[in-house]
């Protein structure tokens, strides 16, 4: 059974007199324990698609089923709650909060969530960040920051992980390492994950690949 399923998603943006059809009849699914990648040229609609998956944007039409619940047309408040409890985000530039120490980056999520907290420091240690628990983000390298972002995405035990070009600010070696960590965690914890990427060199790590071009999505590797 898919964790996330998109059915006939259309997203239009008004463009002067016309409408800009950014996403056209998109169908997509990702299962538990599956790490999916979406690739495509710039301007193809990857970010738009990811924000719809992440309950940050409502589609013009179509349904977004997360564990069979349609999250496509929720109120802002309900969307916020879904993002907190059901989805883990990994952003392009890791986007850590500059005034929180590394261990507090995770503790903050646990603080605003009602779920029972798991040992966040242990998770950071397993990702090789044990010596960084009391550092602020500006002391960390790009790769370290992205590992913290990965830990933060998983900390609230979400069903779905969404990663937005997680390797964009890393060299290819570090990029590959970071995606490998995502892959291993997804498989270990049996989560569903979707990664948007430009980076062809990390595609050996994913379970399925989808290509988006001119607003249309098709599966290129099962």
């Amino acid at each position, binding site marked *: 059974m898919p964790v996330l399923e998109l059915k006939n998603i259309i997203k239009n943006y008004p463009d002067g007199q016309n409408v800009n059809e950014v996403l056209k009849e998109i169908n997509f699914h990702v299962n538990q324990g599956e790490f999916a990648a979406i690739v495509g040229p710039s301007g193809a609609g990857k970010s738009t698609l990811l924000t719809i998956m992440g309950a940050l944007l409502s589609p013009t039409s179509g349904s977004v089923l997360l564990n069979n619940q349609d999250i496509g047309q929720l109120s802002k408040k309900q969307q916020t709650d879904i993002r907190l409890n059901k989805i883990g985000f990994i952003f392009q530039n890791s986007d850590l909060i500059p005034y929180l120490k590394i261990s507090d980056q995770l503790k903050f*999520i646990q603080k605003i969530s009602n779920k029972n907290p798991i040992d966040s420091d242990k998770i950071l240690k397993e990702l090789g960040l044990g010596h960084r628990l009391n550092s602020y983000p500006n002391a960390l390298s790009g790769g370290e920051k992205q590992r913290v972002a990965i830990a933060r995405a998983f900390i609230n035990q979400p069903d779905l992980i969404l990663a937005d070009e997680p390797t964009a600010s890393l060299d290819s070696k570090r990029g590959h390492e970071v995606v490998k960590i995502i892959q291993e965690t997804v498989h270990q914890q049996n989560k569903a994950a979707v990664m948007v990427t430009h980076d062809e060199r990390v595609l050996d790590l994913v379970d399925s690949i989808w290509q988006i071009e001119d607003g249309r999505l098709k599966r290129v590797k099962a």
Partner: protein
Amino acid sequence: MFLTLKELRHEKIKFSALSLIIFLIVFLVLFITGLANGLANDSGSAIKETPAQTFILQKGSQSRLNRSNLTNSDWDKFKSSNAAKLSVTQATIQKAANKDKKTDIAYFITDKNSFLAPKNQSGEKIYASSKLQASGYKVGDKFKDSNTNKTFTIAGFTDKESYSHSPVIYLTFKQAQGITMSNSFNAIALKKNLTKKSGYQVITKQNLIDNIPGYSAEQSSLYLMIGFLYVISLFVLAVFFYIINLQKMKDFGTLKALGTKTSYLVKHVLSEMGILSGVAIILASLVTYFIQLKMPASMPFSLSFSTLLATGILFLVIALLSALLSLIKVIKVDPINAIGGNN
């Protein structure tokens, strides 16, 4: 609060600077407020501290004691234990032994045992407000009225009563013979409320104080300054706080994307401003309090605890209002900006 405390701790310099600005403004406001209150007391406390509520003046005297002239036939209409005759005469005295040093004073002339008179007033013994001590007078000193050369001995001091910035010397009509006209006086003070009496001007105590020469001019200019300080601080704090928060909009977007409720962020911004201004207000109050203790007696400065508290609360409200601009921005920030940062 989690975010607030962590952020205050991490951004010590930035927030200390903001707190310092608030501290300086609050301190200035408190200082001018203390000065305004001090000058108000210096101008009218001899009237203000009496139990009188209403003053009867001659019709057409424009609420000014010195323009009012009443006689015993007027007194007969008001005579009671809750009424008292009052004459106020501004004059100059000098030490009997030292003719060169003169001091401006105000005589408060009342009937012996009236509710305006200090207790124990009798014979040649007279009482003066303790403010006269600042001019070097002690109990037992003799002084001479410069105009009439009448000599008196100071029997004791009352509180710090003052009239039009001068110390007050209390006399009975009998003692004041020669200094003021006999059988006439300026006003009748009543302990009760009265709004009208045909043939007289009836005014409240505050109305009388407002018309002491110089009082209104001093007070209105000082309160104008205080008012401006509140307005200025509202804008200055709003701008500073807005700039500080503007730098954090991306973080607010990320926090929202991660599932932080907007209401949580609103509380965060408000408690941040609340803590900063709270600390600044408490420090400014303490500093003002200690300065007041060290201030020379001749400096008119007075700040009661209730004024201090009211100023502090008013300032906290101003500070929180100044956070409004930032709040609107925080509420509006769209979490969608967290995704697709490359575009």
